[in-house]
């Protein structure tokens, strides 16, 4: 299944980016990983059926599985939220190197 290979590439790339030091790269990694998972979900509805599930113009025998599509739709928007949050964190202090805790004016006990 070709899509399995696509998923594999995306997961590999996402994991690699997730292990990087720069928070921006980590955010990108989250994005790529979520692409992979979305694709995984979509292919769970059998990809032999690829017609849009719109009742006005579909052939029920050929329509794609609508349930994974509903899942993925919400997942995409949530990923947007998470990515924006991570990028907001990356901007603090102008240095997104995660190995250095940015100056935030707080005092740390230990």
């Amino acid at each position, binding site marked *: 299944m070709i899509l399995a290979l696509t998923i594999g590439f995306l997961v590999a*790339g996402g994991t690699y980016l997730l292990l990087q030091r720069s928070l921006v790269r980590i955010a990108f990694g989250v994005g790529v990983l979520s692409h992979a998972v979305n694709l995984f979900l979509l292919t769970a509805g059998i990809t032999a059926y690829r017609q849009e599930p*719109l009742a006005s113009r579909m052939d029920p025998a050929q*329509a794609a*599985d609508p349930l994974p599509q509903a899942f993925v739709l*919400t997942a995409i*928007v949530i990923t*947007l939220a998470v990515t924006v949050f991570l990028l*907001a964190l990356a901007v603090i202090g102008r240095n997104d190197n995660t190995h250095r805790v940015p100056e*935030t004016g707080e005092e740390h006990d230990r």
Partner: protein
Amino acid sequence: MILVWLLAVLALVPVLSLPLTRTIERRTGYPLGILYLVLAAALIPSARQVVNGHPVSYKVAWVPQLGLNLSLRMDGLALVFIALALIIGAVVFFYSPTYFRTGTQRGFYVVMSAFTFAMVALVLSDNLILMFLTWELTSLASFLLIARSGKPGEPASMRTMLMTFIGGLTLLAAGALIIARTGTTNFSEALASGVWQTDPVFTGVVAVLIAAAGFSKAAQFPFHLWLPDAMAAATPVSAYLHAAAVVKAGIYLLMRFTAYFYDVPIWQILLIGVGLFTTLLGAWFALQQTDLKKLMAYSTVSQLGLITATIGVGTEFAMTAAVLHTIAHAGFKSGLFMLMGIVDHQTGTRKIDRLPALRKAMPWTFAATALGLASMAGVPPLLGFISKEKILASFLEVSGPAGLNWLVLGIAAFGSVLTFAYSGKILTGAFIDGDKPGPDVREASWKTLAPAAFPIVMGLPLALVVAWFEAPVAAVLRSVWPGSRKEVSFYLWHGFTVELAITVLILALGTWIVLKRASWRRKVEKPIFRYDGPAVLGIMRERVDQAGVWLAGLTRFDYPSRHVAPIMVSLGVLIGAGSLALWLTGNVAPLHPDLNRPIDLGILIMTAGGVIALCVTRSRLGSAVLLGGIGITLTVQILLLGAADVGLTQLLVEMLTVIVIMLVLRKLPLEFSHGKNPKIRRNAIISAGVGLAAALAAFTVIGRRDRSAIADYYLAEGPVVTGGSNVVNVILVEFRALDTFGELTVLGLAGLAIVAVLRTIPRRYLDPEPDPSPDSPVTYVAPPVVELDVEGSRAYDALENAEANTEVLRLLQKALLPILALVSAMLFFRGHNQPGGGFIAALVAACAVAYIYMAKPKDEPVSRPRTPVLLIGGGVLIAVITGLAGFIEGEFLQPIHLDVLGLHLVSSLIFDVGVYAAVLGLVLVAFNALGISGGGHPSDLKYVKERAARGVAE
């Protein structure tokens, strides 16, 4: 009923002391003391009943499900301790008003009276859980009283708390074991159970636990260190708690549970051994002290050890001795503490070496102290003498190998010699040895002296009528051994017995030591051990602290990759191994035909190339472009899979993500950091492995069945049930509306989280001024190298003049925004039947917001700060209300269908409005938070030039 009244009144006293201290301040002690005496007098009829052999009991269910009942029982043992608590409490309360020179002492009175309540409730409780509760209350009260003494009291109170709460834990464990095994929470009933005879191991374990609890309260080794420590508290506190109450709670526990364990060998060995050891230890340490109060503290430890050992003997005779000595000890010890407090007050010091010879200046104090010390040392004809004789006699009854009782007796006798010695040390050190006192050292007023001396002075007449104690002590015996018929006889003179001979020996030896005190004092006062108790405890705590820090250090990394790597590896291993397992066991169904299309291959190649490039590139801008590219590729794939709505959403989300990335990237360096990552090989291997596992898993589990049954249901029934043609949208807002509701809450929370995080950081850290030096901790942000002409030239304007540059955009905005709003509305309303819906409409509106932002000449927020929060909250609220309205139809979020004016309206449309608002709110937050700049960043050429000019001038 009398018991409940007693407890109720005692519980009210702390409350009563609040207004009392406000009005008559320190003198509150007098009314409270009188109250206690009245209570004691009111108990006389019940006391008579108890002594005659009929214990007073009272029971009412409190929490029946837990077996916690208010079971109160006053028998002989309880009677003795209640009398001690009330009478000594009254005496201390009479002493306090004149002892405390300043302050209202409100906390003192409240906690002391609360403590009395706890103590009386403890000795009255017949229910194991109630016993534990009141036990912990006494621990708490003693902690509070010590902590009141300010700075020096702090470490002492913590140590006290630690020690006494360890005892509480062991008591809890023992109680739980008893309840679990015997099935009852009532003390007396549990006693009747047969498990004590049949299961020696269980009995032994419970015995050890109870012994530990008693030791912790009664300051036996190794818990003894809290008692001298607790001397930081004020003298009345010491007098009451540490002479008559808290420590007596421990003794009470040991006496009470003697009913269970009197013939259990480990109990006897533990009590006698630890008790005698503590006697010697305490006496020796007491002898070493030069501080009067500390000396008394160690002396208390020693005396308690003696009592503990006596309890451990386990015979009825021993119990009578222990009870009598408890009473005697409470009397003379509390009195002695109070007298020491008087000496401290009058002379200003507690150190023996600094005290002048006080016997002429404070004669009454001298007389009372001498009497008290004599009682402690066991000099006839005082109460202390009688009780000590009895103790020595009871040691003769120790059962075991031959000669053991003589050994025990010998050790106890040696302890008594030491007792005599340190008593002599106190007397001589404070009153006899020393310089002539100055003229300002005077005798204390009778108001302070009388209560202090009272318990001691009572020791003399009580010794003469000691036969009065026989009946109550017999009642005590009956409470411990229910069928006891032993005749108790107390007497001042019993003839020439072994114990009398030993006492004479002790007195002789002791007197000789005291007379020779000058020679041995210096030698004895050298400390034996390098560390004392508190130091040992301090070291233990340090070690435990260090262990904790080390343990936490194993996972205390601030950067994500250290935590992500194990997670991803575990994930890869799990799915890879799982898939392999499925293959190897042959559980894999055959692949569905016709899964692939040729176009999938093209997308695979593009995706693979994009991903590899994304991982490798060093340029931030490049990675943003590549990410966008991968996103678009996937959009194509999604559309090809027949997911129209999803594809639209993905496209719009991708655009917004790229815009947000650009908002962020302009504040960061142009490239990712140049340092070589040492983990690059490890990361590559992990990611390759996980990717392989994911591909294998996808191949194994997906595509090996026909389309699911639920898909068929939705495709067939969905449009029929809901009236909407877009099955995906129908699922989102009607069938699975609850999931969508949860999802929009997540969105809203993400937006709020962004606001919260960025609001708590001061501006100068969010957007610090870039440091032009290459090796600053803030990564060097290189300003763009642009060759420019003079300011004002066309080239300059083209790059610098933001106002002019965005003019075109703003002109277009006038036309574009209404169109976008129209498109958004159209997508919103048609979502039920065509690709569209709340999400997509909101994302289109978000694009309009992005456009507005980009058309602004300055970096300003797009809306007021409140607006996105209101949108998010409003969206969630709308969704909730729509959901609640669904109850009309029967369920939360059940869609309501209405036909109005020929239009078919569904309540899910309103739900979609909530979704719309939440998504829009999130995007607004993103632009408001990330779109502003702190005034000066490297892409602002004018700013950089100004700084360079300033740098030249400096």
